[in-house]
Every structure is written in structure tokens, then in C-alpha cells.
């Protein structure tokens, strides 16, 4: 199921993360699992702020990478769902508020 383009997502506030040379490393403190995002994943991660919608994130991808709007939206949706399954992000609707 694709996450709707109007939906907004935010990072799990408990995560530790750092962008190191265009790649983002994320650690979940509860299980010590380490995650790595490539450069486009890192770009999206930086822009996930609880305010921008999925569609807006995809538009940013189109502006910064050579990708069509259709592919950008589909890739953004896929990455958010993947990160959601790993509890790295949650929808603002789920948390009820935009977390700091």
C-alpha cells in the first residue's frame, strides 16, 4: 500500500543519527540496530520534518536529482514505508503531534 502523497512523516525522536560524507547512519537505541541510508535516502531523511508531505518530499527529489516526478513519488513512498517498518519514522497522524 502506498503512503498517500498528502501524508506527513517525522523521524523517531529516540534515534541517534549522523550524516557522514553523504551517507546517513542511524541507530535505534532500543535494539542497537544500525541502519544506513545512501545519498538520496540521506537527502530525504534530512527533509523529513513532520511538516513536508510525501508529495513535497518527492518534489524536492525532482529539484535536486535527475528523476521524473512519477519515479520520485514512488521511490519516496517506498523508502518511507521501509523506514516505517523499521520504526525509523512515523506519520504525524500516528504520533498526534510534530515531535521536536
Amino acid at each position, binding site marked *: 500500500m502506498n503512503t498517500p502523497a498528502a501524508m506527513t512523516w517525522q523521524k523517531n*525522536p*529516540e*534515534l*541517534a*543519527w*549522523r*550524516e*557522514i*560524507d553523504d*551517507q546517513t*547512519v542511524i*541507530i535505534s*537505541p*532500543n*535494539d*542497537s*540496530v*544500525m*541502519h*544506513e*541510508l*545512501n545519498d*538520496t*535516502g540521506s537527502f*530525504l531523511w534530512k527533509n523529513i520534518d513532520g511538516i513536508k508531505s510525501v508529495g513535497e518530499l518527492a518534489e524536492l527529489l525532482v529539484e535536486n536529482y535527475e528523476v521524473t516526478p512519477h519515479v520520485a513519488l514512488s*521511490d*519516496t513512498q*517506498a*523508502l518511507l514505508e*521501509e*523506514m516505517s517498518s*523499521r520504526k*525509523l519514522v512515523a506519520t504525524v497522524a500516528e504520533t498526534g503531534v510534530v515531535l*521536536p
Partner: protein
Amino acid sequence: MSVTSSAGATPLMDRLISRTVRKHRPLSVHFDLTYRCNERCVHCYLDHDDHGELTTAECLKVLDDLARSGTLFLTFSGGEIFLRRDLYEILAAARHLHFDISLKSNALLVTAERAARLREFAVRRVQISVYSDVPAIHDAITKVPGSLERTLAAIPVLLEHGLPVKLACPLMRENLAGYRGVMALAEKLGVPYVLDLTITPMMDGSGGPLEHRASVSSLLPVLRDPVLHSCKPQMTPQAARAMNSFEPSLGSAVSSGMASSAYEDLPCSAGHNSCYISPYGDVFPCVQLPQAAGNLRREKFDDIWYHAPQLERLRAIRETQLPICSRCEIRSYCERCPGLALMEGGDMLGAYERACALAEEKARLAGVAAPISALHLKRKQEAGLVPTKGEVEFASFAVHTSSD
């Protein structure tokens, strides 16, 4: 776009270490917030007087600099961290900057309220020093009556608040015989542990703590212990479930770096992708290598990290170029530390007695016949007890000639 995940010491971690070593990114930092302590452990290498700790504002500035430089793994230690009145303020800032936060403490001051605060800051691990499961032994080391009871009472409190705990047990003369008790205690608590064979000199180089160091021969039962698999990572089933670190159960409790094959020909992580910061703002490659590269009150972290001559010299060292150790036949059994080589042998590039003796014992236990380190071989050769390489070749030539 992709997201890759894994836990523990993994290819993903190795890749991160390789990348940060190659580009000299300060991935892991050990930050002592204070040297003040409410215990007086007999083997401690610190001067517990306060000689002018970084202020709260200075600590927060350091954290900002580290985050900008790419530090992810941040360990706050001491002294006893709970003696810093601004600890929560510092932890809140570290959380805000998305560090992976670990703490080291004796847990004497842990309460349910304090544990709850630590949980708020998403602390990933609290490492607690436990020297024995026997109160008289533990308390004699800390010089605080009742300290084991208080420390052990704190552990369930931390666990109940969702804070992973790890026991750290430096082994010395006073507690060596009871190391199995600490392992059993960890198993009972369901937490991982690390037994540490390293007792270091004071940071000023004086050797007081070394009086408590166990002899190499007395360490043999530990090295032989099948549960520890001859120094390979080994955990109880409960500890494996609670596994939340990238370190083995027999290793160093003070190192700021992480063990990995990704370091290849480097002596260790110190100065390559890890460093140590003292409560006074001094930046060292490692707490065990007390050669200050600069001070954060006078210089920015990046200026020290990328330009200090001490760090540049350290980064040039390759194990295969060490004058003595590079030709050592039992090098693979050695856990040589550049800092201890400097403090104990006077030369960061040199061999030192303790590492050589331990390597020989480990090699012997692994089935190597008559193992001898390059240092000991050199000494024997200098004393004329074994032929040098040139003498062996000459003797061989002489035998060949006579048979003609």
C-alpha cells in the same frame, strides 16, 4: 534509494569504520565530564581533584563541534558523571544533537527518578563498574563500604526503566580469583559484561595503579577459560538477548574505539576515528594515550583533530612498520596498545614487556610451540643465547661447505 540495517559487529559497522578511518572522521568520542568521584578505586588512573572543569556552556559548545565534525558514538564518563550538577543539561543537548549516547558510572547515585531522566535522553547503554560479587572484595577496591550493595541495587532500577546495562570488571590482584562470580552475576541479571585485563599507569605516567596489576602467570586461568573462548567474544544467552554493544566480553573497558578488522594495519582506532576529551578540554587520541593534541578552550575541535602534529604522527603509524613488533612471529596473539607502549616502554612504536608476555601465553594456549615475541628474541640474541639470523646463515653455509 536504499536503507540497510544490521546489529552488532557487522559488515555495515566495518564499512562505517573503514570510511571514517580513511577520511579521519571522529566517529567515536569518549568525553570525561569530571574526574571527581565518590569512590577511590585502588587501581584508578585519575587525579580526582577538580583542576577547572569545562563549564556547562563550554561542554555544550564541545558537543556542537563534535556533531558538526561527524561524531556519532559519544560516551560520557568520569570520575562519576552524576557528580556533575549539569549532567541532565549536557545529556539533553547531546540528545538534541542526535548522538548515540553511552554512559559509564559506578551507579551509586542512581535513583528511580534519575533513571527515568536518563531514559528520556534515549541513553543506549549504561556501563557499570563491578569488581566482584563479594561485597568485601568490591568494597575494598572502591574503598567505599556498602558500595557493591548500592551498585547492585541500582542495576534493576536502570533495567526497569528500559536502560540497557553492561557490567565492566577490570581484573587485578584483588579480584582476579573471583572473575567467574562477576560472570555469574551478569548472567543472573541478564546483562552483558566485559572483563578487562588492562590496568594502566596514572595519566601523568606514575605507576601507582600498576601495583595492583595481576601477573601474567596469574591471568592464565582467565585466558584458558572455555567460557571466554580464549579472548573471543562470548555471552550468556541472556546477555546475547540484551546485546547492545559492539565489544567483546574480554577486552578494554576504557578504550573509546571499537574492535574491527576494518582497522587493518593500524594499531587501533585512536586518532583515526576516535579520541578522548578530558574534563579540562584537553583532546587526546585515547584516554590510554595521554599526549594532548590541543585544548578546546583555546582551539576549535576541527583545528585540533585535523591539524595537530601529534595526531598526524599517530596516523602515520602502521603495524607492519613497527621496528620490533613488525617482525614478531606471534603478532596475531598480541593486543599491543600504542599508549601503553609509550607509558610503559617509553616509545609509542616500541614493544613492551606486558604485551609480549601476554601474547606468548595466548600463543602457547593456542598450541604454538615455544612461542617467543620479537622483543624477547632480540634480548636473547643480544645476550648471545640464540644465534642471530646472520649467524644462522653462516652456520648453514659452513655445513654445506664441509659436506663438499
